[in-house]
């Protein structure tokens, strides 16, 4: 299968979503990302037992902070799918891209451009 996903997405590969820390998610927005989503294995299917559960909690923490500081909590999300589900991967990419397009650009990016 050679499925196309939106080209605006920059993929960062990790051995496990459990590697992601809250600060990584926040820094992405500080650097101007319009949205970030974490794609992990299905819950219950983590090779390292609970990496994806931890990731979910961190995504939730990021959502809370982004909401409170006026960036928008929905700019960060978590998707769970197995490695054999390429169509779901594409679906997540499309869905996320559309959602973020609707929300408009990361206000930080705009503010940085103004300040510069």
């Amino acid at each position, binding site marked *: 299968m050679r499925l196309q996903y939106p080209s605006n997405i920059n993929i960062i590969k990790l051995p496990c979503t459990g590697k992601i*820390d*809250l*600060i990584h998610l*926040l*820094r992405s*927005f*500080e650097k101007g990302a319009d949205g970030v989503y974490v794609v992990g294995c299905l819950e219950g299917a983590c090779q390292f037992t609970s990496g994806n559960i931890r990731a979910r909690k961190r995504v939730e923490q990021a959502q809370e*902070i982004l909401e*409170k*500081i*006026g*960036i928008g909590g929905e700019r960060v999300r978590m998707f769970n799918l197995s490695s054999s589900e390429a169509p779901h991967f594409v679906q997540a990419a499309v869905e996320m891209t559309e959602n973020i397009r609707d929300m408009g650009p990361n*206000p*930080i990016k705009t*503010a*940085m451009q*103004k*300040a510069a």
Partner: protein
Amino acid sequence: MIVADKKPIEEIIDMVKGYRKILILGCNECVTVCEAGGKKEVAVLASALRMYFMNEGTKIEMDEITLERQCDHEYLEEIRNSMDQYDAVVSLACGVGVQFMAEKYFGSPIYPGVNTCFMGVTEERGVWSERCQGCGQCILDRTAGICPISRCAKRLLNGPCGGSTKGKCEISKDLDCAWQIIIDRLKELDRLDDYEEIAPIKDWSTERAGGPRKVVREDVRQ
């Protein structure tokens, strides 16, 4: 350890707005263990504040430092030479550290970045609970190692009260009745007869009631 909880970011935003350069100061001890004020939390708070103020169109510079401790002179001294450049400091240490900073850097605004809660244990990751209120006159020898002052909602020295139900406290089904645990321990230790000794009226003067406390040890003092 001293257990603290995160302060809502909107409270911190309110404290620091108006300053141009601030230091977010973490502590590598208790608040790191309870995930409220260590290096990671410093980074997260700084990032969130930067984004908030950037979005507001205000330029605020933020430095991040995490000290080994904030309750000892020697560590606080490490930042003496750089303190001049900051308009304010948000300390993510417990209330002890915040105050020691305020005392040491008398001319600098110091703000608390966490809510300091109690002295307690990590029951499991993300769950901390109280064990000691520092009454200054330990009675654990008489209560089978379980403290009714910190763990009974009524601080009963001769408990349990009539509200103890199925091992739980009357104020919450999620709270163990300290006296149930004391009695279970006494039984385990084959000391249930000790239950009938009346605990005498406590001298609370070594506790908060006696005013701010101090321990002076001439044997180690220099």
